[in-house]
């Protein structure tokens, strides 16, 4: 396990080093699919330069990173490439180390369920065995490190890689069971971009499950732990925000970072859904539509938590996917994060219905993004509709992927409890439909 992992790390380092030193690095840093106004490296450098000139980096609409990022990059701006490679490693090492943690618990659960006859008799082939799960950590690491999206994001030195690292660290600490660290890291992730706020619910569910506290709104133990966790989370968020204030001595960063994320003033095309809508909408509808679009991100948390309250790990995956699809400035780095977790659900493969379509759509769109950008901006023979069509298709493919996995997961759960070969009341074969 260690040897293949090391080999993988060496290969990943080589690829990134080669790309860093080639002429492609500037090309990639300028691509709108890879960098967004929130996490472009150019803007980080600009912000630090403004700070050296004695001006607040948030003056002028250039810099939208949080002050702790300023602190980090102030010391490491010359070694930025190493920082990003290290953060990429963080993600995959953590991702691959969290698998064993999950495994033991999951095996135990399976064993108990089998023994207590909660699982039906003919679902043995659905159960996960250690043998099949042995290589999952390596696969997860590979999926992240060798994902072209991750490589592009790392070579472009987009701070999305650092955000991914923080989220991966948060998942790691959650699965390890340390509520304090998990709360602190979630606060850090929320501080970076607000959307990981939705990960509060799955983390809470995980801890409740781990501590065997039933998720019952009338139980005091539930509220007790929830308040504890919420207090740790909110407390660390407040501390981090206060620290940021003390770094620069002003509250400038709040409208520049959070106001920017929420009100979406910058309409540079990206792979998200916001820019086209907001470019063509009238000013007096802008508030309404930005509220609608932002609620769309947070909206799926409650229903999904209710449905997946026994499966918080999958819920985390779903939430990350939803964030990266519906956030205001997505990049391919966000897509790479949830794609890295796909091997963890490889046992769902037999239930996936649209995997061919989805993979074709995603591949085709990824190839068409630069083509249509060139046609629009340089050749002038296309317009923004072409690019937005591909953006829509890409997001549609992602949504289909996520929905497919959701369907497969639920179906597997259903089969586990009701048997693999379902029969209707009259004995004929039944089909399962996700409603």
């Amino acid at each position, binding site marked *: 396990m260690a040897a293949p992992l090391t080999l993988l790390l060496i290969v990943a380092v080589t690829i990134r080093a080669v790309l860093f030193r080639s002429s492609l690095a500037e090309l990639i840093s300028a691509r709108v699919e890879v960098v967004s106004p929130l996490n472009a490296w150019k803007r980080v450098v600009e912000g630090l330069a403004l700070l*050296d000139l004695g001006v607040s980096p948030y003056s002028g609409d250039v810099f939208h990173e949080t002050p702790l990022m300023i602190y980090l990059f102030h010391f490491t701006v010359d070694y930025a490439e190493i920082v990003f490679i290290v953060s990429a490693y963080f993600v995959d090492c953590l991702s691959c180390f969290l698998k064993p943690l999950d495994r033991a618990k999951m095996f135990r659960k399976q064993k108990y369920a089998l023994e207590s006859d909660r699982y039906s008799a003919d679902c043995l082939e659905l159960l996960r065995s250690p043998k099949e799960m042995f290589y999952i950590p390596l696969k997860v690491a590979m999926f992240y490190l060798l994902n072209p999206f991750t490589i592009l994001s790392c070579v472009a030195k987009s701070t999305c890689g650092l955000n991914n690292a923080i989220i991966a660290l948060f998942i790691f600490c959650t699965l390890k069971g340390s509520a304090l660290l998990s709360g*602190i890291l979630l606060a850090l992730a929320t501080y970076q971009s607000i959307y990981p706020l939705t990960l509060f619910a799955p983390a809470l569910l995980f801890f409740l499950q781990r501590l065997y506290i039933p998720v019952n709104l009338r139980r005091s133990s539930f509220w007790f732990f929830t308040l504890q966790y919420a207090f740790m989370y909110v407390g660390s968020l407040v501390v981090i925000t206060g620290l940021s204030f*003390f770094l620069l001595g002003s509250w400038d960063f709040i409208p520049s970072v959070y106001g920017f994320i929420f009100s979406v003033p910058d309409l540079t095309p990206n792979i998200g859904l916001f820019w086209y809508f907001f470019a063509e909408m009238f000013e007096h509808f802008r508030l309404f539509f930005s509220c609608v679009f932002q609620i769309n991100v947070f909206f799926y948390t409650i229903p999904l938590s209710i449905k997946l309250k026994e499966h918080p790990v999958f819920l985390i995956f779903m939430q990350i996917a939803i964030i990266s699809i519906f956030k205001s400035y997505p990049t391919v780095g966000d897509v790479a994060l949830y794609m890295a977790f796909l091997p963890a659900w490889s046992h769902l493969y037999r239930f996936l219905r649209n995997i061919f379509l989805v993979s074709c759509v995603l591949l085709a769109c990824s190839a068409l993004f630069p083509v249509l950008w060139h046609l629009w901006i340089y050749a002038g023979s296309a317009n923004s509709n072409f690019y937005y069509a591909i953006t829509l298709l890409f997001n549609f493919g992602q949504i289909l992927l996520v929905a497919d996995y959701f369907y497969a997961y639920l179906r597997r759960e259903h089969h586990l409890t009701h048997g693999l070969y379902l029969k209707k009341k009259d004995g004929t074969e039944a089909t399962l439909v996700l409603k």
Partner: protein
Amino acid sequence: MNYCNLITIFAFINLLVSIPHGYSNYVETKAGQFFSSGHTNNWAVLVCTSRFWFNYRHVANTLSVYRSVKRLGIPDSHIVLMLADDMACNYRNPKPATVFSHKNMELNVYGDDVEVDYRGYEVTVENFLRVLTGRLPPSTPRSKRLLSDDRSNILIYLTGHGGNGFLKFQDSEEISNMELADAFEQMWQKRRYNELLFIIDTCQGASMYERFYSPNLMALASSQVGEDSLSHQPDLGIGVHLMDKYTFYLLEFLEEVHPASQANMNDLFKVCPQSQCVSTPGHRTDLFQRDPGSVLITDFFGSVRKVEITKDTINLTSPVEPPIKRSGSSDIQIESLTYVDQLPVAEIIHQKPKQKDWHPPDGFILGLWTLILLVFFQTYGIKHLKHIF
């Protein structure tokens, strides 16, 4: 007898000795005057602002001044000629390639070597002002630029249809006397002229020089406010009036000027009195520093180079003399005008303080790392401390 001879011989020798000495004194004073005359080059901007065949006379006006100016020595490279319409090759011209000034067709002012710099629709108020102030796009060729400096005497001649305070360009726009005055002030501030002679031949032309406020300007106009400038004679063969009265007599006057003539401005002011011109020509010299009687016509209309040949060496010890004070107003002390300190050089090259790089505040670093350590020990327990210390 011998004594007398000695004295005469002595006086003669004294005279002989003092003559070259006197001569060198004379040469030195002349040299002093040589460098104090003020201008070293001449420019002319001649503008005809009206188009259409029936405004033939305005083009003829401008061309006649062009002719005189060229004849007296200003080269084409120093003349900016702006004609709003082409009369010589106009399809209504019965004598193509000619522009006559007199009905006897004795003087073809078009000639063989006319160089028109701005023609047709290029003659606009904007272009005229840009030529004067020098604010032309970098792609403008040299022939279209007024490349004067602070030792240039410039002649500006405008003709066309005008009114009280304005001059009409091309039948569609106009330039006001205030704009013109401001343009001249810009020229003064940018040191684009030494002295400027402004002649205008339009109706109510005197209104155009009323607003001037820059120094070293002399202005002449063909008519006062409320009067019309009249044209001279029509030619029945060509069918239009060939020239305006004022410019006709101006041309007559200038034809008698040659490069060495000593005619001065007072003679120019007498050109075309009311008996001949019907309108009353006006002039303005209050902004001019020198006495108009001492200003030669060739100072503006010609490009007379001052050359003195001497076989003696001259010591130039005294600096350039300031301009001669006007004999008229002795109570007003006009100080000699010098360069304004345009670039505060001392302020520009003073050293900027070296910028210090921004550094996070120490309190922040302390707080952050204390927190990190606290969390670390909270998570991993105090028992690890034992192993560290």
